[in-house]
């Protein structure tokens, strides 16, 4: 890879040197234009390059959307996630329309109105009608987006107790996550960093009666179709609990409890078998195979093949190993979930050991 890079840099330097010497030759040559101010020839040439650049820009945008829009996350695995995606696609549609129109006007005008000696520009200083039009159009469009956005936002963020969500604490520390299930009473026991001692790693108050049936786990299992209310707590610095597949994110702040609720609606199994994911995983495994061959050639261990799992990652810089702070999430049927949960030991059991 170093060789590749060195070659690029050398090639670039060569091009730069060649171009510079060309410029100097041109500027020294007899009859060549040596004025540092653009003349008609420059105006024409630069206008043509601008037009070419516009073509490049449009081809680049088309290429990006064609090849990379598949990188967009798979179908949202939570109920509210679909609303976010709809709003996202509407917004992208609107901004791309504006982008295509305005960039075309900008570059086309540059080409069309390239300067020529003796040409007269139009003295056009003001036009209230035009300005009114392009004030009012954004106002209307934005009003629509704002209203749509705010309704969705309050749907997502206002958690009503009537839904009777499952309460799970997500606990962050440098550089790992833990989950605490509230147990049969669906109420989390009191907790604070001052209770951390020995095996009581998340600082639960042993004397709180609500605490004894809490279950602390290193994986996050969620039953499909049930609303989950996450309570986030950090023991050291800021973290951010980012669930990309569920379109959910909330910062984890030491000294306070933050929250976010969503209803997962696609199980891990279903997601693995979706066309999108089958495709993506096979692409990834091809890449990993290729990389493994390179590694083995160097005498290093090959990479494991990849199987999809939902994950929770940290999305607020939290220290040196910020890039590797993750927890596996499993979305499963209610029976599977109950079976898994019943195997986990309660906080009281942990403390008795």
């Amino acid at each position: 890879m170093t060789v590749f890079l060195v070659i690029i840099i050398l090639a670039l330097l060569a091009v730069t040197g060649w171009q510079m010497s060309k410029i100097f030759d041109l500027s020294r040559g007899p009859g060549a234009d040596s004025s540092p101010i653009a003349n008609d020839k420059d105006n024409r040439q630069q206008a043509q390059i601008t037009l070419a650049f516009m073509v490049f820009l449009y081809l680049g945008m088309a290429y990006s959307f064609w090849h990379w829009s598949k990188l967009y996350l798979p179908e949202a695995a939570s109920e509210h996630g679909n609303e976010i995606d709809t709003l996202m696609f509407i917004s992208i549609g609107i901004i791309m329309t504006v982008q295509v129109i305005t960039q075309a006007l900008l570059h086309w005008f540059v080409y069309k109105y390239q300067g020529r000696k003796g040409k007269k520009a139009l003295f056009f200083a003001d036009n209230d009608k035009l300005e009114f039009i392009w004030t009012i159009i954004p106002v209307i469009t934005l009003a629509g987006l704002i209203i749509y956005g705010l309704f969705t936002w309050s749907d997502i963020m206002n958690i009503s107790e009537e839904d009777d969500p499952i309460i799970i604490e997500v606990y962050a520390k440098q550089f790992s996550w833990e989950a605490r299930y509230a147990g049969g009473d669906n109420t989390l026991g009191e907790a604070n960093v001052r209770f951390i001692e020995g095996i009581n790693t998340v600082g639960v108050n042993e004397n709180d009666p609500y605490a004894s049936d809490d279950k602390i786990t290193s994986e996050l299992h969620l039953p499909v179709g049930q609303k989950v209310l996450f309570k986030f707590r950090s023991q050291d610095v800021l973290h951010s609990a980012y669930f990309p597949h569920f379109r959910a994110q909330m910062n984890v702040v030491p000294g306070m409890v933050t929250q976010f609720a969503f209803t997962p609606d696609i199980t891990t199994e279903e997601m693995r078998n979706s066309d999108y994911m089958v495709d993506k995983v096979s692409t990834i495994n091809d890449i990993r195979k290729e990389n493994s061959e390179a590694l083995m050639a160097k005498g290093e261990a090959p990479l494991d093949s990849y199987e999809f799992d939902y994950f929770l990652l940290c999305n607020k810089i939290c220290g040196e190993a910020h890039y590797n702070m993750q927890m596996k999430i499993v979305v499963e049927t209610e029976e599977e979930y109950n079976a898994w949960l019943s195997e986990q030991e309660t906080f009281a059991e942990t403390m008795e050991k």
Partner: protein
Amino acid sequence: MSALATAAAQDHHEDHGHHHKQTFITKYIFSTDHKMISKQYLITGILMGIVGIMMSVLFRMQIAWPEESFAIFNLLLGDKWAPDGVMTPAMYLSLVTIHGTIMVFFVLTAGLSGTFSNLLIPLQIGARDMASGFMNMLSYWLFFISTIIMLSSLFIESGPANAGWTIYPPLSALPQAIGGSGMGMTLWLISMAIFIASQLLAGINYIVTVINLRTKGMSMMRLPLTVWALFVTAIVGLVSFPVLLSAALLLIMDRSFGTSFFLSDIYLQGEVLNHQGGSPVLFEHLFWFLGHPEVYIVILPAMGLVSEIMATNSRKPIFGYRAMVASLLAIAFLSTIVWGHHMFVSGMNPFLGSVFTFTTLLIAIPSAVKAFNWITTLWKGNLQMNPAMLFSIGFVSTFITGGLTGIILGDSTLDINVHDTYFVIAHFHLVMGISALYGAIAGVYHWFPKMFGRMMNKNMGYIHFWVTAVGAYGVFFPMHFVGLAGLPRRYYTNTAFPYFDDLADVNVIITVSAIITAAIQVVFLYNFFVSIFYGKKATQNPWKATTLEWTTPVAHIHGNWPGPVPVVYRWSYDYSKMNEKGTDYVVPGQDFVPQNVPLQEHEEELNH
């Protein structure tokens, strides 16, 4: 006719008799002359820009080829931070942090607004110098000291600050949490406190100068848009920088004196800290109360420069002068009430999120007005494609591309899933990084003759622009898709998540574009430094512009004008204005009328 303007002035050359004896030190180092201070700002800004951009190339290489060994890492970072040529995670985070700090504060705040406020405010309003030359000098030297302190933090044992340029506590407050939060962060905070003092001194000076020292006839509505933009920028800075200073001071107290403004309930390395009752969210509020206006402090001057350069090179008045001023004011006002859009998922009350979504999306309106007005300024123009003009057009292009994605990020609902991903990086680099740099570079090409009395080479300018334009889009357009795929920013490597393996190709494209774009800046540097000494001698008004700075002689003199300061009779955009009958330009044969030329017979002043 432009000769007419200066002919009168030259008669008075001998009257201006108080020549001070200048030594090397008073002329080039501790100068109180605004033109020299502007050059000092520019060159310091360029040097800091080289450091900042180099850093970005280094960490982009780490992202594209994670944990590969590069000799250049070892050469530049040393054995401690790049053992065997592999960059350490701590150094990666330091580079990211210091790159952000240097580019935002030292290059795009001081380098851009410092350079052009100092150069253009006195020259364009017809003043002999800043209101306080001494304060102005002090402001530059405080800035210089702050850059030295920041750079010195690169060489200390525990490493430079690496909690991100936003330095959110507790990470930035606790050396136990990350190495860079020791001495490195102390130096960062000291440097920033001095920098803020420098910006406040400078800002007060700019405001007072614009309000009090305008020449006769220069009403506010006759000011060039550059001066309007720099004036409004100074006000925004004055309103918001003190808040960052208070945040920095409180953080210093938390770090060194055991207070708990931002810290509470923390357990680190086996012990509970004594801090109780503080809130990191409070810091976020204080930080972004500056942080968001800061992006407008960066972009408004660029908007002003671009407006001026576009009008001059289109040979047309800027379209909708009043709307341009009104939108500047609207953006400046709104910029102070939108900071919460950086904090939609910070844990603050969701109702606040709704309010900030509303105010944030409002900013799109004046921004759209500006973009449309620039495009209309080109319409039916006589476009002179000087390098400055190209960079101005590039500015409008990247400002639109980057600004539009702000509609997604400013919407609290959509922000949930793209917050702190590469989508954000793509957005703000296009809209305030690349755009502001284009504005600054356009300004350098345009006002170089005024600063150094010589011209820059246009052909090198063309090459510089086109490679940069392609490269910058190559870096930041693909980045949107990486962000939409859910990839978080500030990750040392993405290999810990096999799920992101298919993004590796795109990351290589981005990095290669970044290397090309950075490399081509060498052409600019060469052109800049060589032209200072060997460029073609400039004429007095090379771009045939109307503003007052082009009525001063090419050689810099103390007090700017040899005779009395010019009197202003018209606004600054009388390009291609026709006479009453429409037979010829107002001044026959000349498509521009400088501001100091009185209204001609039967000429009506435009009621703008």
